């Protein structure tokens, strides 16, 4: 196989682009696609400061690397979730990356600063671990971005993530989620702007990017991943993609261009109706926000130990 651009030996084939690429031109493709996503959706403007939610996985580390390479002022925020060895290893990858790039990393440890970890908080609050985790991440990323004066929070969601979420939301017609499923959510009412610069790149490309750039990342699955349903959507989409390359891209970008507008009306009204949390000041529909309620329930709960490693695929 030969590179589409220089005819040198290829290292990766991307059937969606009907092309193969050498290492150099593959990296250029990743940068170009990221730049296009940022420009098309006005994600980050010149001179703005970005806070990247880094987990130690391929997507967030690739995103951090890409933004730094492209000259953005991008710091990382890592949350210590306290999920056994998985979190310890993930933190190691994040710190090693930050150090190698001389990049600024902010760390927040849930157990040290808020008195709980994900497994314990989930049990105490009787929520699914991923729901507890998602709630904690949203709250703490928003807060860190506002406290640190960042213009935007960037996450590593890629095309596969977005297409899988879209499939799930369409299958069950979750109108309110469909209205929010955008590559950019504007800042308002105490929420910082949220951007997803990797939406034009697939999951396979992000893993390949890390290998080519020599970035070590957490390959194992989080042992708490409730993933089954989400993974099933990804599998289904990859089956379609194999038969019809470009299917995921058409599905997601077709939705953004032709359908997403119709679901947007509900968001604005909802956001305008928010109050300030009595304890922390975060925007919330009730008097005390869901995060503060979680912290309260988890306080003093018996810690849950994680023994398993790596979920099944």
């Amino acid at each position: 196989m030969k590179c589409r651009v220089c005819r040198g030996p290829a290292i990766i084939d991307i059937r969606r682009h009907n092309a193969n690429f050498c290492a150099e031109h593959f990296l250029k493709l990743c940068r170009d696609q990221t730049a296009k996503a940022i420009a098309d959706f006005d994600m980050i403007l010149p001179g703005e400061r970005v806070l990247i939610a880094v987990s130690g996985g391929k997507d967030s580390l690739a995103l951090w690397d890409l933004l730094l390479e492209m000259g953005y002022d991008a710091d990382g925020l890592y949350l210590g979730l306290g999920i056994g060895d998985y979190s310890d290893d993930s933190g190691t990858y994040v710190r090693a990356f930050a150090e190698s790039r001389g990049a600024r990393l902010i760390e927040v440890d849930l157990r040290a600063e808020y008195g709980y970890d994900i497994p314990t908080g989930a049990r105490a609050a009787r929520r699914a671990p991923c729901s507890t985790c998602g709630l904690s991440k949203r709250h703490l990323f928003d807060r860190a971005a506002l406290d640190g004066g960042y213009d935007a929070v960037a996450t590593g969601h890629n095309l596969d993530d977005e297409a899988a979420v879209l499939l799930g939301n369409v299958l069950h017609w979750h109108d309110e989620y469909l209205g929010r499923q955008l590559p950019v959510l504007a800042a308002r009412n105490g929420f910082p702007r949220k951007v997803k610069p990797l939406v034009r790149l697939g999951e396979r490309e992000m893993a390949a990017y890390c290998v080519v750039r020599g970035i070590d990342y957490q390959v194992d699955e989080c042992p708490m991943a409730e993933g089954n349903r989400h993974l099933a959507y990804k599998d289904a989409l990859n089956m379609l993609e194999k038969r019809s390359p470009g299917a995921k891209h058409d599905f997601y970008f077709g939705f953004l261009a032709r359908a997403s507008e119709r679901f947007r009306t509900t968001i604005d009204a909802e956001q305008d109706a928010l109050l300030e949390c009595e304890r922390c000041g975060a925007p919330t529909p009730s008097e005390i926000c869901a995060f503060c309620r979680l912290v309260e329930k988890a306080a003093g709960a018996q810690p849950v130990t994680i023994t398993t490693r790596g979920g099944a695929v």
Partner: protein
Amino acid sequence: MKVLLRNPRREIDVDGPVSVNTLLERLEINRESVIVIRGDELIPADTVLADSDQVEIRPVISGGAVDTQVRP
């Protein structure tokens, strides 16, 4: 050749020579869901693997929270 698989981590023996594509088909792995690494290099689907090679078939699909991706 030795083939490393992940989640869970395990190693299997496969007779070479065989192309990456054929190897994936034999193992019933969708090429869209993995990358294949020999040494520390990424290798494309038409590469022919020799008996003496050591390769890793690394899944690229992560699960996790749907929840974190849909709310503001």
